[in-house]
């Protein structure tokens, strides 16, 4: 006879098994290190303020979800996922996709601007050369 599986009990088991204090400490320390690194890079003018909102949002999200476990369970249920760990991986992927897309947009703009700049320099060089030839 096959043993019957209670889906809701299994789900609760998945949720509670991931609730470990060491994971919470790692998330807490990780978020503080991330926020501190962002602020130090801005202070040294190696990161522009306009790039910080996404990173700061990530640091705050890790801090909240890591420190207050019920919030991670709530998000897991909201997303229809079964395990909190898959929610963490999913949110991580969403964040990385967002960052990649935003960099792709900036890179596209920079490529176009660099092309125009090179053309302008070439035209100015040509005009300068024509001017010195005529002088």
């Amino acid at each position, binding site marked *: 006879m096959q043993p019957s599986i209670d889906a809701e009990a299994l789900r609760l088991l998945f949720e509670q098994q991931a609730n470990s204090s060491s994971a919470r400490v790692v998330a807490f320390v990780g978020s503080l290190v991330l926020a501190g690194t962002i602020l130090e890079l801005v202070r040294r003018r190696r990161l522009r303020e306009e790039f910080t909102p996404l990173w700061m949002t990530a640091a705050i999200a890790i801090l909240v979800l890591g420190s207050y476990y019920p919030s991670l369970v709530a998000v897991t249920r909201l997303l229809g996922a079964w395990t909190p760990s898959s929610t963490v991986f999913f949110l991580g992927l969403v964040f990385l996709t967002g960052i990649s897309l935003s960099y792709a947009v900036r890179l596209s703009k920079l490529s176009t*601007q660099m092309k125009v*700049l090179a053309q302008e320099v070439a035209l100015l060089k040509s005009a300068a050369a024509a001017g010195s030839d005529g002088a």
Partner: protein
Amino acid sequence: MQPRGLIVIPAFNEEGMIAHVVAAATVQTGFDVLVVDDGSSDRTAERARGAGAGVVTHPFNLGYGCALQTGYRYAHRHGYEVVVQIDADGQHDPADAARLADPILRGEADIVVGCRFFSGSSYTMPPLRRLGVQWLRFLLRSLSGIDLRDPTSGLQALSASVVRLYTSEAFPSDYPDADMFVLLQKAGYRIRELEVRMKERNDARSMHAGIGVLYYSYKMTLAMIMNVLRPAQRP
């Protein structure tokens, strides 16, 4: 004779107003006028040149702050004693530009800010933006002890030393704003504020609207705190 004053006007697609603004600035101040055409697609550069301004044209749009910094670099290179930055949309009165430059030419201040808010002023601002300005005023007072009624005003006069600082890496990634006063005060620059009148403009556009106000407030708060933590810098 060494040139004394330069009016810097960053302009992006302002062909309708630019000739009038250049002519008024020239007559009212007697200073040289430089229009930084920030990659306009209309005839802004041509109109400015026709009105007698020097024109520097960016190959593409780089933003308000970058256009300002191009003007500062020009001023620094040509040895101007004072630079007054005014907007190209005609909202700033060029007569005020001359008033703002005076304390600098007399050696009494290093940066003079045109304050738009005073009793009797007809200038109005949407409530959310007004709240943002009040927050930055509070933050500036708390962090630096400077009480400016209008720390986000774009109408400012700068001494040659401040202009030199603004051509360095201390210049913000977008444009100089309330955050720079923290840095200037730390470096010992003398900051003054004078009341100025703003002209009405029917199609006035703001750089900050809607959700942009929230982002702007976040960015400025971060930038001001960072400037408190950075070492004092003077060229």
